[in-house]
């Protein structure tokens, strides 16, 4: 019998945070666990909060200046009363983005990360308790503008949306595969600037995106002109509806 817990696993193991760890000879202890296990655990907890309140949580990522906040402003206005939106804003400094979201008509919580180049599940947890989740259909978590670091940290979101603005170049999915591989939707933004940029080809961006074995939807949007916004709004409404359906189906299975 195990000394630390009395379980029937024998004396050749001990317990760390609920996992069984077995020491091998010569002082080597096998662990085999995700390095970001702690963050993953907190992210699952966040997801449980969102699920309990039937909230669709979206992690919005891009390089700085790709138009995340502008897309959110246009989204809040276009949705009107169809879905209620709230936003958690992540930035190194300033409340500027949260102010813009509030001016567009949605509640916003600003996280200032100081020097951290990404949001993590703990920061999102602290922020989500400042929101009334039960009055929200869609929660956008606007990550720190960065195409590298945010990809490594699960926040508890249901969907990853990655923006690629036409001014950045159509080879970004090829240069930043970790970020674009996990996208559930890629939005090509600032479409109104495409003629001025001259050498951005959406078909090339899409090919690089597919070469990451990613079958996700690709949309072309201009938040400024409104071009392509309908398809984006339709996608959001479908995703929010399927989340509510899957939750009520789970409830029926659990409670008959």
């Amino acid at each position, binding site marked *: 019998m195990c000394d630390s817990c009395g379980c029937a696993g024998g004396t050749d193991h001990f*317990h*760390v945070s609920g996992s069984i760890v077995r020491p091998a000879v010569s002082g080597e*202890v096998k662990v*085999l666990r995700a*390095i970001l296990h702690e963050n993953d655990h907190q992210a699952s907890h966040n997801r449980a909060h969102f699920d309990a309140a039937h909230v669709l949580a979206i992690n919005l990522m891009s390089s700085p200046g790709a138009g995340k906040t502008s897309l959110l402003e246009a989204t809040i206005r276009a949705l009107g009363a169809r879905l209620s939106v709230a936003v958690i804003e992540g930035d190194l400094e300033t409340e500027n983005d949260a102010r813009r979201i509030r001016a567009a008509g949605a509640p916003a919580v600003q996280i200032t990360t100081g020097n951290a180049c990404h949001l993590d599940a703990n920061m999102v947890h602290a922020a989500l308790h400042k929101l009334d989740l039960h009055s929200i259909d869609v929660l956008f978590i606007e990550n720190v503008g960065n195409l590298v670091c945010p*990809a490594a940290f699960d926040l508890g979101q249901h969907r990853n949306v990655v923006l690629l603005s036409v001014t950045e170049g159509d080879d970004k999915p090829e240069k930043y*595969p970790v970020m674009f591989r996990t996208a559930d939707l890629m939005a090509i933004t600032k479409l109104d600037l495409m003629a001025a940029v001259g050498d951005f080809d959406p078909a090339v961006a899409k090919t690089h995106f597919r070469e990451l074995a990613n079958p996700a939807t690709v949309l072309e949007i201009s938040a400024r002109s409104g071009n392509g916004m309908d398809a984006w709004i339709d996608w959001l409404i479908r995703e929010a509806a399927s989340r509510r359906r899957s939750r009520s189906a789970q409830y029926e299975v659990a409670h008959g």
Partner: protein
Amino acid sequence: MHELAICQALLRQVLEVAESRCSKRVERIKLRIGPLSGVETGLLKSAFPLVAAGTPCEGTIIEIEDIPVRVRCQICGSTSQARSNRLLCTDCGTWRVTLISGDEMLLAAVELLDAETSNKWERAHV
């Protein structure tokens, strides 16, 4: 540079293992990392000593097993090695493949010194 945050998470887990075995000295940490985890292994190795200073992980050797990117084709079923930004089937060329390895970021094992040796180590270094 999210490697610093990853080092802090790694250190917490390793210290937990060391404490639970009453070890004051971690000799070696073994990791398994694939390129699609987004971790730069060189940065991880150079950042770890910064977070580990003054802990039982000071001077610990970090050993990283690089995990190759491998995919299985959803069309023809063959498995092949791939580059991080070209996840294609080498047999039929399709992008309709499933990643089977290459996104790992795992703490595989921790090598601890026994109490007697770790006391000696401490006397020699403090």
